[in-house]
């Protein structure tokens, strides 16, 4: 069982204070109504595992909104983040505080954002400085929108995230697939595409004339672009590629059911979970789908690894969070009785 993250506590992050997930296992499902904090948990997990990595901070922003100003997006990660007003002068955010128990011991991440109007530029622009402190060590400073290389003075884990929009970005898929091809590990992606279409034979990255794309070799259609297939196949490719890259790390999946028809959820998720187990990847996923919950329960049951599954139900009320954890047995009892656990 791979459980890099054992407990995760968002003491202060976005609009959340004191939200704790205790007893994380290798596969963790987070359910709850809209605005209950599910996506924030995934972001916070990513930041906790790679605190001094500017790309992790950028990912947290971009996974919410691809076009938003990076500085405004960063600012919104911080607690009580009222909209930024750089015209009023420099602003200092409230402090992010995220705590966790990991395989390497306890970790406590604190961060603060300093935003201001950039000077010396022709057009007015806004920049931000994020200061991150891990376990009380000297703070690392990252400057945005043009951060330098990450300063890895603390251990960082392999973390990859898949959102409902990841599969709409050819650039992201190409980057993932290029790495996976380099490592000779594209088989999972091919196998997952075969769940949807048995004619799929291979997958590759093509770069020519300044164009990059993912090409699928198909038994009857020949070599075609992945974009010519439906959402389910693109999403599954995104999941497979991110999972492959997260080897011995953590995969964060927002809305694990996104783009995938319920009739194929079971085989797709079963394959992902099987690979996650062999690749020693811990999964933290959110879902709005009862079919996805049932598919994951079934897949874990088939694999005879029920202890690896935990589900967390979140409810936000009056700015406080209630979290209820269900182990496999409880989850089965509730679902066998028809309770909608979302």
């Amino acid at each position, binding site marked *: 069982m791979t459980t890099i993250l054992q407990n995760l506590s968002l003491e202060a992050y976005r609009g959340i204070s004191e939200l704790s997930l205790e007893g994380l296992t290798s596969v963790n499902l987070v359910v709850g109504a809209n605005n209950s904090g599910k996506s924030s948990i995934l972001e916070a997990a990513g930041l906790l595992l790679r605190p001094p990595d500017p790309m992790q901070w950028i990912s947290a922003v971009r996974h919410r909104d691809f076009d938003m100003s990076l500085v405004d997006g960063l600012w919104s990660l911080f607690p009580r983040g009222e909209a930024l007003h750089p015209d009023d002068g420099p602003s200092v955010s409230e402090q992010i505080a995220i705590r966790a128990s990991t395989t390497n011991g306890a970790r406590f991440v604190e961060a603060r954002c300093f935003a201001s109007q950039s000077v010396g530029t022709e057009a007015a622009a806004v920049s931000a400085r994020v200061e991150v402190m891990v376990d009380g060590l000297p703070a690392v400073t990252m400057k945005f929108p043009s951060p330098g290389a990450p300063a890895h003075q603390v251990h960082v884990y392999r973390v990859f995230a898949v959102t409902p929009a990841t599969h709409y970005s050819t650039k992201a898929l190409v980057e993932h697939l290029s790495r996976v091809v380099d490592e000779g590990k594209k088989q999972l992606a091919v196998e997952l595409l075969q769940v949807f279409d048995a004619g799929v034979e291979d997958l590759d990255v093509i770069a020519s004339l300044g164009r990059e794309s993912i090409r699928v070799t198909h038994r009857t259609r020949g070599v075609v672009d992945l974009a010519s297939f439906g959402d389910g196949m693109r999403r599954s490719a995104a999941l497979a590629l991110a999972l492959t890259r997260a080897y011995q790390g953590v995969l964060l999946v927002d809305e694990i059911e996104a783009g995938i028809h319920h009739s194929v959820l079971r085989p797709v998720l079963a394959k992902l979970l099987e690979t996650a187990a062999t690749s020693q990847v811990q999964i933290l996923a959110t879902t709005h789908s*009862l079919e996805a919950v049932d598919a994951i*329960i*079934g897949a874990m049951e*088939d694999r005879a690894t029920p202890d690896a599954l935990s589900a967390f139900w979140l409810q936000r009320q009056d700015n406080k969070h209630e979290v*209820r954890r269900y182990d496999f047995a409880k989850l089965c*009892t509730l679902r066998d*009785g*028809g*309770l*909608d656990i979302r």
Partner: protein
Amino acid sequence: MSAFFYIVTEGVHDVAFVGRLLSVAHGASRIRKLEDLDDSLRGWVSSAFKWPRFTGKHHDIERLAVPAPAFYRLATSHVVALRNAQGLNEIGKTLEIDIEAFSRTQRGPDVIGVVLDSDDEPADQRFGRLKATIKGLKLLSPSSLGEVSAGTPRVGVFALPEPGTAGTLEDVLLTLGDAAYPELAAAARGYAGHWRQQADGEPAIADWKELRKPAGTKKATIGAMTAILKPGKSTQVSLEDNRWVSEQTKALTCLQPCLAFLNALLTAPIPAAEGSAESSGDTP
């Protein structure tokens, strides 16, 4: 705010029977529209009665859906939910699921009732197991059958036909049938009795297995009566629509233990809501 009473029973017949007792003795009327329930109960119904999971190994077609509770509004305006656990052995699990569902809503039941019977196992043994389940759910169990505990929520457990007496709902129904429909009851007893004797000599044993069970003849007698009273319809419909439990029969001795239990359950002081200084004192 109306109090909410939750009563879980073994099956549809118990639900229909207790529903009639509520109507006759407590002026209850059936709530049939979701809109007539308050928000928290609507939330419960909406979340707790989805399709059970499909395991991929077995999936009972009959259990593709979970039956929703029967809701009644008492003359006091308080609401009672009668939950069919779909089997005596499922009562503990049903309680576990519903308590979890309630804990996720803003409001759970003020009082919980459980109605058992003692068909093929002494009620005290069943109660012993149920007490462990109740304790596991962090509820205060009553110390004995027929009592209502003082916890929050209050919990009462009853065993048909009455605590300390072996039997089932059918024992009560037979007495009610004798009073409400004496000729029909006599004929049905003779008919079922005849076939019970015949069953011992029948070669196709499987066909007669149910009739040969301890409560088989009683159940067959009730079934024969309801087949006449409500041809082509279920026993549940007859219990709901006919005069098994009525103004005329409600004084019969056989109903008094169950009526006393329901009275204790429905008039138990309502525990103060969390955060409130004191109980509303608003009892049914």
